C-alpha cells in the first residue's frame, strides 16, 4: 500500500462489542456471577485436590530450573570450580555478589576466588549469575526455606556456598558436562 495512508489502513481496531439490549439489564449477569461463586464455594472436592497445606505438604518443585539459594560447585578434585572471572558479579542486577580474585595455588588454573560473598537478602533470585558463568561454577538450588537470625548471618561466604553444594549435590547434580576440563 502507498506509504501515505499506512497509518489509517494498517491498523486494525479491535474493540470489545458494545452491550446488547439483553446485557444492559445486568440482572442475569449478576445472578450468573452468584452461580459461579456458589459453585466454587460448595465444591469441596476441588478444594481438597488443589490446596497444598504447607508445611505438612510441600509442592513438587522442578528441581532443574527452580531458583533457590546459590551454591558454588566443586570440581572432581573437590576444589572450588570458580575461576574469578567476575562475570556473575557484573551480570547481577542487585549487586549482591562480591568477589576477591587471587592467583590460584593450583597449576592448571590461573585465578580462583579468595573471597566470594553473596548477600542472600539483597539477591532477587533471577538466575542471571547462573546464566553468565562460563564454567558452571555458580548454580541456584531448590532450597528456599532459609532462616537467618540476623542480616549478617544471611551473607553467605565461600565456605557456606560450598557447604550448600555438599548438601545439595545429590538432590541436584551438576547439570552440564565439564566445559573446561576442571
Amino acid at each position, binding site marked *: 500500500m502507498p506509504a501515505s495512508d499506512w497509518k489509517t489502513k494498517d491498523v486494525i481496531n479491535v474493540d470489545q462489542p*458494545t452491550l446488547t439490549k439483553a446485557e444492559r439489564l445486568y440482572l442475569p449477569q449478576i445472578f450468573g456471577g452468584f452461580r459461579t*461463586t456458589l459453585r466454587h*464455594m460448595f*465444591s469441596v472436592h*476441588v478444594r481438597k485436590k488443589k490446596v497444598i497445606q504447607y508445611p505438612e505438604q510441600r509442592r513438587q518443585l522442578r528441581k532443574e530450573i527452580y531458583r533457590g539459594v546459590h551454591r558454588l560447585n566443586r570440581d572432581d578434585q573437590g576444589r572450588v570450580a570458580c575461576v574469578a572471572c567476575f562475570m556473575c558479579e557484573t551480570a547481577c542486577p542487585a549487586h549482591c555478589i562480591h568477589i576477591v580474585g587471587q592467583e590460584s595455588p593450583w597449576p592448571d588454573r590461573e585465578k580462583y576466588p579468595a573471597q566470594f560473598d553473596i548477600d542472600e537478602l539483597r539477591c532477587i533470585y533471577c538466575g542471571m549469575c547462573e546464566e553468565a558463568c562460563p564454567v558452571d561454577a555458580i548454580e541456584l538450588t531448590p532450597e528456599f526455606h532459609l532462616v537467618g537470625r540476623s542480616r549478617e548471618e544471611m551473607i553467605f561466604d565461600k565456605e557456606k556456598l560450598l557447604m550448600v553444594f555438599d548438601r545439595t549435590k545429590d538432590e541436584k547434580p551438576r547439570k552440564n558436562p565439564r566445559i573446561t576440563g576442571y
Partner: protein
Amino acid sequence: MKHPILSGLLAVSIGGIVVLSLIVMFMEQIKWLLADQFWFSVILSLAIFGGVMTAVAYCILLERKISAWIQDRYGPNRVGPLGLLQPLADGVKLLLKEDITPGHVDRALFVLAPFMMFVVALIGYAVIPWGGTFKWPWMNADAAPLVAQVASIDIAVLYILAVGSMGVYGVVLGGWASNNKYAFYGAMRAAAQMISYEIPLGLVVLTAIVTVGYLLPADQVMDCLRLEGAVAAQSHNGVWLVVYHPVAALLLFIAALAEANRAPFDLAECEQELIGGFHTEYSAMKWAMFFLGEYAHMITSSAFMISLFWGGYTLPYCTELNTSGEWYWMLARMGVFGAKIGVFIAAYMVVRWSLPRFRFDQLMRLAWKSFVPMGLLILAAQILIVHFGWSQWLSPLVNLGVLVGGALVSLMSSTPITGRQQSLLVREKATREKEYELQHAGV
C-alpha cells in the same frame, strides 16, 4: 505444654463449681428475677450483648472462610480446629498493637468516632423480637407472659430507623477528625451514600408496615409499628411478607448493604480508591471498632429484615413452634431466628465476594433514579390495595410489574452508564468529527 492446660482446666472447674453452688443457693431469688419482665430484660440484654460481641468476632472469621471457599482455598485453619480460635488471636493482636494517634487530629472527635459507630449499632438490638411470648414453668397461671425482648415499645420500627441512621455520624466524624483530605473525601462519599439509601429503605419499610397493618386482625392493628406485630401478622396468615412483596424485600436487602457500606457499595472505604477511606488514620483497636460496628450493623439490619419480611422467629406450618408459650419453644424460636440471621450474613458475604464495586455516580444513580421510583410505586400500590380493600395477592403482581417496567425503561434508554460506554461515545463523536473534517478539508 501441659501445665497451662491443666491449670486452665482446674480454674474453669473450680469456677464452674462456685457458680453452680451459687445458683443452687439462690434458686428462689433467681426464679423470681427471671419471672419479672424488667429483670428478665436486663439479663437478656446482657446475654444479647455478649452474644453479639462473639458473633461479630466470628463474623470476621466467617468472612475470611467464605471468601476463601469462593476462591478455591481454605480460610484460616491453623489456630483452632477449623480455625475457630482465630478471632481470639485477632483480638489479642489488635489489643496489643500500637495505637497511633496522629499529631494534627481533633483528639476528642478522633477517639469518639469509632465508639459512636459501634455503640449506635449495638443499641438497635433492644427492640428485636427474639423469642415471642412465653412463661416459665414456675410462674403462676394468671401471671402475664414474658416477652423475650429487651424492650417492647410501640414504635419499634421508628426506633430502629432512627438508631440505624446515626451510623452516619461515626463515619463522618472519623473522616473529619483525621485531618486528612482523602479520609475526609471518603467520609463525605460514605455519608452521601448512606443518606441516599435511607430513602428506599424508608419507603420499603413503610410498605411493610402498611401491609402488616392490613393483615393484622382488627383489634391488633395498633401493633403494626411493633416488630412483634409484624411477626404476628406473618404467622397469623402463615404467609411471609416476602411472598407478597418480593421486590420490596430485595430492595431492602440492597439498601441495607449500602447502609452498611458493604460491597458492592464500599467505595468509601475500599483500598484501591482511597487507601482506607474514613478509617485511614486509625490503627489497632479503633479500627477494629469501626469494623465491629460495621458487622454489628449488618447483624442488626439482618434481624430487622427478617422480622419484617421473612417471618421473624416463625416457620411456616409449625404452629407448635410459632405460638406455644413453653420456655423450650422460646429457645427453639431464638435458635430459628439465629439460623436465619446466619443465612443472611452468609448472603451478605457471598454478595461481597461476587460482585464488582459500583462507581460513586453509578451508586447514586441507582439510589435516586432506580430505587426511589420503584419504592414509591410499590408503596403507592400497597396504599391503593389497603384503601380499596383489594386482595393482598395483588401485590406480588405489582412487584413483578415494577421490576419488569424498570427493566424495560433501562432497555429503552441509551444513557451511557459504564466508563467504557462513555469513552466509546466520546471516541465515536471524535471519529465522526474527524471524518467530517477530512471530507470538507478540500473545500
